[in-house]
């Protein structure tokens, strides 16, 4: 399809400006462009058709199944959109929260911040929450900086290392390094969980913290998480819970009760706010007792006069202006209220049931990465198919031809030819069956006509992309 620049015709316009109702003023020539900006010249209809066609080529969870493992691409309920669009939230100026004098006119927003943070703390088994971080990795960074603030305050200058299992969420090492720590990786056992003995071995006095994802990126619950917490706390190392996979346990089990000191929530995963097309996300955090004094500020507190802002003396500082992506918090709040405390465990129940249903249907044709049942996502390995020349990438592309978004492939790195499938609680049995049927049909094709899969996708507007060229030969220039 043509770029909008290619539709440009000299002199064509989509807007007619209103007649000038103020005196015309000369602009300082230094402020003016030497020549007009090279914008496309198109009619309103050109613009409407162009973007309508583009939107029809879009792929999203509103149109099709999106089983991207580790990403929790669940349906985003429209009631959350409705609430977020309320003018009382949507048109609020963020600076209203920045001065005492304005507090009376944004009580509703402050209450929402307070209540969402309180609910998140409750779900996490923590003492307090904070909505500031803008995305999952930003929440990780906030959490690790909190751990740093804790050790700084205690004079623990020798604590320079963060331990991270190789089955942790991929961004953990980057977040820890960005916060100034050295990262040491702890390997997994063949069963796919953290090697506890290796952890104990590495857990010396220089360790500031341990970052865990539970269930981990193998889709497995870490069975020794209690012992890890005990051992870590014995050397004054704190425990970080990466909430990327919280969908598997939300409302069922609380990281704080397991011994974690700090965690982040991906509101855009577990609490169904939109993502996958740029979000924006939210990586809200919650902390237990040890880290409470260092939380980012200012904090919303509830007093007899209503909701007010309070600075915290030992706060690590701000992680973001205002309260992060506030309207995302509004959506998450709506989601939480929609489910309620009694309904929330059904999210985890169905997410885990769905993943195991797909696992059961597919683990014959594809090799199961690990034995036993899984949590909210199942990991398959296309090693048998790879022996016949069809790799995880080919299978992913073949799925595109069959109308599905591909699952996550080649992640985690610990599993060869990995296909990582996460249906979430929002998919029906019929949808999962259609996807499994397609996967099984592809597995059969690998046996009888593997060559037919090398060219996939053949039914989409764009055929197989040259990924090497895409990575090396970047060309972002528009045609104008």
């Amino acid at each position, binding site marked *: 399809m043509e770029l909008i620049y290619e539709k440009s015709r000299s002199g064509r316009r989509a807007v007619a400006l209103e007649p000038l109702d103020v005196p015309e003023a000369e602009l300082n020539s230094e402020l003016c462009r030497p020549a007009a900006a090279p914008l496309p010249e198109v009619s309103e209809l050109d613009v409407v058709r162009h973007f309508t066609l583009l939107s029809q080529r879009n792929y999203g969870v509103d149109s099709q199944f999106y089983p991207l493992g580790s990403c929790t691409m669940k349906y985003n309920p429209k009631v959350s959109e409705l609430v977020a669009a309320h003018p009382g939230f949507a048109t609020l100026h963020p600076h209203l929260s920045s001065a005492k004098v304005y507090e009376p006119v944004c009580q509703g927003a402050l209450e929402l911040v307070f209540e969402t943070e309180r609910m998140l703390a409750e779900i996490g088994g923590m003492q307090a929450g904070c909505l500031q971080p803008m995305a999952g990795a930003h929440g990780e960074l906030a959490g690790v900086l909190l751990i740093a603030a804790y050790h700084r305050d205690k004079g623990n200058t020798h604590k320079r290392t963060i331990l991270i299992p190789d089955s942790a969420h991929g961004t953990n090492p980057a977040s820890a390094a960005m916060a100034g720590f050295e990262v040491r990786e702890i390997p997994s056992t063949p069963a796919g969980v953290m090697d506890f003995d290796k952890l104990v071995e590495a857990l010396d006095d220089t360790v500031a913290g341990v970052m865990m994802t539970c269930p981990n990126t193998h889709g497995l619950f870490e069975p020794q998480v209690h012992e890890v917490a005990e051992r870590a706390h014995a050397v004054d190392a704190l425990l970080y819970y990466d909430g990327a996979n919280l969908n598997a346990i939300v409302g069922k089990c609380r990281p704080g009760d397991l011994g974690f000191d700090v965690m982040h929530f991906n509101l855009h995963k577990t609490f169904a706010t939109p993502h996958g097309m740029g979000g924006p996300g939210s990586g809200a955090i919650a902390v237990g007792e040890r880290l409470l004094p260092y939380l980012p500020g200012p904090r919303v507190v509830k007093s007899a006069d209503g909701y007010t802002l309070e600075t915290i003396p030992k706060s690590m500082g701000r992680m973001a202006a205002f309260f992060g992506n506030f309207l995302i918090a509004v959506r998450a709040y709506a989601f939480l209220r929609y489910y309620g405390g009694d309904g929330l465990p059904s999210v985890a129940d169905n997410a885990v049931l769905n993943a195991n249903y797909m696992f059961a249907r597919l683990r014959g044709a594809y090799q199961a990465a690990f034995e036993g049942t899984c949590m909210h996502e199942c990991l398959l390995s296309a090693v048998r198919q790879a022996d016949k020349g069809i790799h995880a990438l080919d299978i992913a592309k073949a799925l595109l031809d069959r109308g599905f978004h591909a699952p996550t*492939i*080649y*992640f985690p*790195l610990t599993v*060869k030819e990995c296909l990582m499938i996460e249906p979430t609680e929002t998919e029906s049995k019929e949808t999962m069956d259609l996807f499994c049927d397609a996967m099984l049909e592809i597995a059969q094709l690998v046996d009888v006509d593997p060559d037919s899969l090398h060219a996939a996708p053949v039914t989409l507007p764009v055929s197989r992309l040259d*990924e*090497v060229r895409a*990575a*090396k030969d970047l060309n972002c220039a528009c045609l104008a």
Partner: protein
Amino acid sequence: MNPESLRYTMDHEWVGEQNGLCVVGITDYAQEQLGDVTYVELPKVGQRLKRGEEAAVVESVKAASDVYAPLSGEVAEINEQVENETDLVNRDPYGRGWFFKLSNYDSAEYAELMTYTAYRAFCQGR
């Protein structure tokens, strides 16, 4: 270089002695697991590396990985060609796809590395 005369690490680096220097690259198994390599970042000449320290970065269409120093030493030479022609890592991992050369290395550390036979058995077990 002939893979059979090289030494190996569990992180899939190979090491070969040549004219008093240690040549380092990633193995055929590693390049195959990575897939098409799109980016290579090498250490600086003169940099002192400790065994196990991050020495280089290799990125492919699938993943980004660190390359670790298989033994301690000083970076004497780097393969600038591989930074531009990253497909050399895939096409010729034991030859023109080498990463860097170390001087002043410890021969005892070299002797501790896996032999070709040991490395092959190690890969088969994975």
